[in-house]
């Protein structure tokens, strides 16, 4: 029984290993900067088929095609922006993990900032209200009452 379980475990590990190997091709780069850009680009694009996987670790054929295209365009001397545009033109904004700032995404980018601003404002107002309340001078009647209370405690 234990042997069967061990074999099954090995089988699962083995198939996971081949799946991972399939997703990563060997690519030659003369320039380490180019290589770095390649890895950052394929890490920033979502596979159009697999819902939430970057194309750098997806087995889908389309991810392979996209990695290949990124590589070719890099070798061709295109800038990162050009390469991202090339992909978005074909597969849509969907593939970007960091959506670009444009009219459709103002809310997306602006809302968190707006919420932080509102939060800071609320805290500021609360603090001011509290400080005003605590620094208010006591009236003569109130001080007399306070003195009386303190003295009663002491005696």
């Amino acid at each position, binding site marked *: 029984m234990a042997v069967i379980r061990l074999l099954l475990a090995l089988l699962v590990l083995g198939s996971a290993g081949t799946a991972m190997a399939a997703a990563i091709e060997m690519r030659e780069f003369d320039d380490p900067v180019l290589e770095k850009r390649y890895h950052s680009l394929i890490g920033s694009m979502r596979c*159009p088929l697999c*819902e939430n996987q970057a194309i750098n670790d997806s087995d889908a054929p389309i991810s392979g095609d996209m990695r290949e295209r990124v590589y070719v365009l890099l070798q061709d001397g295109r800038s990162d922006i050009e390469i991202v545009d090339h992909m978005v033109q*074909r597969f*849509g*904004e969907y593939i970007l993990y960091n959506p670009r700032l444009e009219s459709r995404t103002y809310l997306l980018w602006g809302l968190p900032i707006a919420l932080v601003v509102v939060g800071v404002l609320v805290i500021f107002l609360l603090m001011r209200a509290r400080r005003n309340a605590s620094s208010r001078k006591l009236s003569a009647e109130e001080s007399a009452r306070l003195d009386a209370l303190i003295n009663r405690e002491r005696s």
Partner: protein
Amino acid sequence: MKRRLLLLLPLVGFLLFSIFLYRGLALDPSHRDSALMAREFPAFTYSTLEDPQREVDLSLLKGEVTLVNVWGEWCPACKQEMPQLLDLADRGVRLVGINYRDTREKGLQFLEEFGNPFELNIFDPDGDLGFDLGVYGAPETFLVDRDGIIRYHHTGYISPADVRDVILPEVEKWQ
């Protein structure tokens, strides 16, 4: 009294936000419009599946409303879709195929076995035309109007209900 009502504001905000998020749950992430919607079909020059000597280009898709179907012999859903495509061809819809990531031999064999609703097939063995179309699986279908502009995009298998409820009305609309 007015200040009391003000206290309800966070609750209202929360409810609005909940409705917004709840609606998000109904979205189907696998159905999104093509990035090429309302844009011209990408330019191409390829040979046809049927005749390696014959080259076709974008002018093929101009002058007539055309349904462009991306298929491959390796794609099981494409086989199930064939009866619907044959039905559409019977109803007079013009169909052009893109034989995607396939070999000539397998592609032709597929048409022999499952029928051929296509006027002709563009042969795209490396998937380059598919890439320019933003195709990420097969089958996918594009409706191209008489000016070569993409007007409708269907991802995945076209069911008999899709033919009746979606495809035919769309073809009609751009006719």
